[in-house]
């Protein structure tokens, strides 16, 4: 049987598509099957397919096309490209469209507050900001409990640390 698309090569692949409950069957040669973008030929279903699936759905439908395509100025990887491949291009990409990744990261990891190891290079500043976050949580709790004296102490501590971190 010849490929139904090119009518030249022998059909080796049966491509079955179900769209809105309508089933269509195509017999294609390997070349044309590869061309069919929807059919990921020869590679097993990967985690990245899943990711782009998870990523794509809510954004594709809710955010207009023009304002979502951020492009990394360092490696040239766009947010749309990430949506397709599920792979980030470089560390700068996280700066350019890191905010957009937050919902995905939340789905993957649950809690997305980083608590792990800190490289010694970044140690000082990260430690400081972790401390500030912790104090702010305590401050909120103190205000809730109407412990205003304690809150005042905490507020001063936070101010102190914040002035350090801005230096």
């Amino acid at each position: 049987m010849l490929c139904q698309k090119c009518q030249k090569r022998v059909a080796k692949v049966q491509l079955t598509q179900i769209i809105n409950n309508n089933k269509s069957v195509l017999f294609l040669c390997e070349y044309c099957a590869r061309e069919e973008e929807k059919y990921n030929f020869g590679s097993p279903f990967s985690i990245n397919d899943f990711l782009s699936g998870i990523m794509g759905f809510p954004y594709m439908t809710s955010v207009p096309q023009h304002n979502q395509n951020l492009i990394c100025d360092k490696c040239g990887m766009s947010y749309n490209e990430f949506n397709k491949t599920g792979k980030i291009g470089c560390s700068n990409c996280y700066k350019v469209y890191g905010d957009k990744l937050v919902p995905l990261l939340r789905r993957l990891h649950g809690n997305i507050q980083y608590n792990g190891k800190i490289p010694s290079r970044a140690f000082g500043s990260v430690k400081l900001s972790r401390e500030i976050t912790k104090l702010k949580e305590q401050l909120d709790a103190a205000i809730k409990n109407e412990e205003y004296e304690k809150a005042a102490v905490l507020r001063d501590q936070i101010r102190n640390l914040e002035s350090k971190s801005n230096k």
Partner: protein
Amino acid sequence: MREWYIKNGPESDVVMSTRIRLARNFNDFPFPSKMSREDGEKVLDKVKEAIFGRGRAISENFQFEDIQKMDPIQRQALVEKHLISPDLAESQAHGGVVISDDEKISIMINEEDHLRIQCLFAGLQLKEAWDLCNKIDNLLEETIDYAFDERFGYLTCCPTNIGTGIRASVMLHLPALVMTGYIKGILEICSKLGIAVRGLYGENTEASGNMFQISNQVSLGQTEDEIISSINSITRQIIDQERSIRKELHKQNAYRFEDKIYRSLGLLSNARIISSEEALKLLSDVRLGVYMGIINDININVLNEIQLLVQPANLQKSVGRALSPDERDIKRAEVIRNKLKRN
């Protein structure tokens, strides 16, 4: 033998091995999937410099291997030893690996991330493996500027590894849970707890010889210690269950149980043609027999050695040439017979 996988570790009646892997990237190069050939070479050089450079503490005990210069059998042999991933073995450009002499530490270069630092230990030794991995990481960090973000932690190519970049995994031998079908329940519980279960060679592979790898899926939001201790506690529970079912199965029908084990031993030590799949299956039974004290005259180290030798690439490497699949099955049977010869 100085290789770690021949030896036995803690809880090795159930836990074959422990692995900790850290994903790290350079701050100033695109990740490997987006990187040019020149950048790839530069990353290789920088990693080599970080390990073998003047005055580096660990340089003497490590070897660099250029993946591009290896033939497929050599690459596959490293995959079978878990020293490189199947992805790195198939990589087309600038892939490399640095391996320690005892094969406990391997640092993959330009895999999905610039660096994948991993430490392998026999038995259940998550804490020990993490400590060693952490040390290597600190050492590399002295010269490498890592991609790190205050909010997200260590930045990785795939968002599933972001944060700590850690993957803690243990390889478990669970014949009794498989025999009774209880394994299904365990797998379900694991997936509910955010723990991945895979076959012998990680992602996309099947469980063979009753071997299962369990590992954490979450890498962000928890500390390394929390991740490790949750894998540790789950592993301990699985160990307890596997052990108690082993005992129970033996108690219920000792003759049948021992018959199965001795039949497998009989096949293994007499077969003239054997596939790696069958060999792993039979080895699983014999391993069970040795650990339960049913077979007393076989050293478990011999089984560990066979476990690796029967796999296609290491088998061909030991023979020193490429073999057709049929030749392999014959050679495999011969290697096993020789190793199991009792004096």
